[in-house]
């Protein structure tokens, strides 16, 4: 069974077609990058897949179940593009993760030993063990991203959606973040759906790429799919030579 199957998906908002006839599937354990210019519908696609916005036509199945199915919540992780929250929220990293750990209905400030151990283990995986007692609002962009990854994998999901996760993070933070995601992919057989503007990242980390511009322009392995013509058609003439520098870089 495919980890993710999207068939003929169409999203229309106020009469505007944001996505038209999107069809693709993703096998378990693959890293799939979604690329496209601003306004191409990348975030809309991920939000529609996750059931955060309605779609007018088509179907989305995650592990054979429709988006929004209660059973899926523990199998899907999500790190949004820009996390909107009150920075003065007096909430520690440990508390945030503790409140995400099931069961949902339990006395809030009673921490069970196994929950504590689970949280420490998660923070170790993402390299954020020293952030356990830090306030969420005081974290840097890179630190927050690692904590949000820890939150996304609390329930040991099979598929992780990352919406431009390293935007606003410095170069070192981006490297560290992508290494972490790849380690999770390899060690936990985690399927990763990654929105990225950075073609370098796509070449280095993605098994497959989906080129989006309201419609699915192309899909396949990055080295084979991202030809000069394809990049020009998606991003315009200015990006035409980029592919060569990326190959040279590799």
């Amino acid at each position, binding site marked *: 069974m495919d980890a993710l199957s999207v068939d003929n998906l169409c999203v229309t908002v106020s009469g505007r077609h944001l996505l038209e006839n999107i069809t693709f599937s993703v096998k378990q354990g693959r890293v799939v990058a979604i690329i496209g210019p601003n306004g191409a519908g990348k975030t809309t696609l991920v939000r529609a897949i996750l059931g*955060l916005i309605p779609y007018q036509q088509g179907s989305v199945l995650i592990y054979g179940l429709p988006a929004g199915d209660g059973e899926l919540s523990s199998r899907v992780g999500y790190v949004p593009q820009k996390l909107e*929250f009150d920075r003065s929220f007096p909430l520690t990293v440990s508390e945030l993760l503790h*409140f995400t750990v099931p069961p949902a209905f339990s006395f809030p400030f009673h921490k069970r030993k196994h929950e504590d151990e689970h949280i420490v283990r998660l923070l170790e995986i993402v390299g954020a063990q020293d952030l356990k007692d830090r306030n969420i609002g005081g974290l840097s962009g890179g630190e927050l991203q690692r904590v949000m990854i820890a939150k996304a994998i609390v329930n040991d999901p099979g598929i992780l959606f990352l919406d431009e996760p390293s935007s606003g993070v410095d170069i070192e933070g981006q490297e560290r973040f992508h290494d972490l995601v790849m380690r999770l992919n390899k060690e936990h057989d985690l399927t990763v759906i990654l929105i990225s503007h950075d073609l370098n990242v796509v070449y280095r980390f993605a098994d497959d790429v989906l080129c989006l511009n309201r419609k699915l322009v192309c899909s396949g392995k990055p080295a084979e799919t991202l030809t000069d013509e394809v990049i020009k058609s998606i991003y315009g003439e200015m990006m035409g030579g980029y592919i060569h520098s990326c190959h040279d870089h590799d």
Partner: protein
Amino acid sequence: MTMISEYISYPFIQRALIASVMVGILCPFIGNFVVLRRMSFFSDAISHSAFAGIAVGALLGIDLSMSSILMAVIISFVIAFLSERTSLSHDTVIGVAFSGSIASGMLIMGMMKGYRADLFSYLFGDILAITQRDLYIILSVAILAIVTMLVFFKSFLQITFNRELARVEGINVRLFEYLLFFIIAIVVTVSLKIVGIILVTSLIIVPAAAAKNVASNMRQLFSFSSLFGVLSGIAGLAGSVYLDTASGPTIVMISIGIFILTLFRGRAV
């Protein structure tokens, strides 16, 4: 000392003390979610919708507590529904509900014959007029609200932190938001008799906001807010008796004093 024990021996003072402790714990507990979700104006609209409920109750000759609770719950759901289903912003919907409630309440009161001093007492509240029945109602609501919030605490907190992440994590955001609005509506309404419609929001907001100034984690937030709420209630009641001032405003001014003090103190480690 003799004066204090003499005052405490009066049943109406005892009831007022019990009420101030209960409301002092209950209002800030709910208030933490109101402050974190930036819904202060929402709780204000709810208290004013209770005014319309009181007027309707008086006109129809039904129990005023029940009519105010019912109206507050209806208006809170209407606000939630319109905010979700229309393109109107949340604060626009609240503003319409707020002014509509006050206007309809005043119109209905104007239609009634004679002067109803009891209705206008809801505007300013009177903790010293709390009856045994009021205490039972506050206690019932406090148990219902706090137990519900504790049982579903993780879900409420996840939604407060980020609605979309909560949805992806399988939480029924709409259900819990309506539940939260329902709880805010009944808590606001049962607290009306303490400080009145005009000031009831401050019981919910101010201790929670003061606690947010100094708390560095959720445990501290909930502990400090209840501590400040109880302290404001007891000190305000004692101050009003001692200074012969109105109890509601005195309680609120004590909580404002605590809030100002917390502004000058950093977050606890």
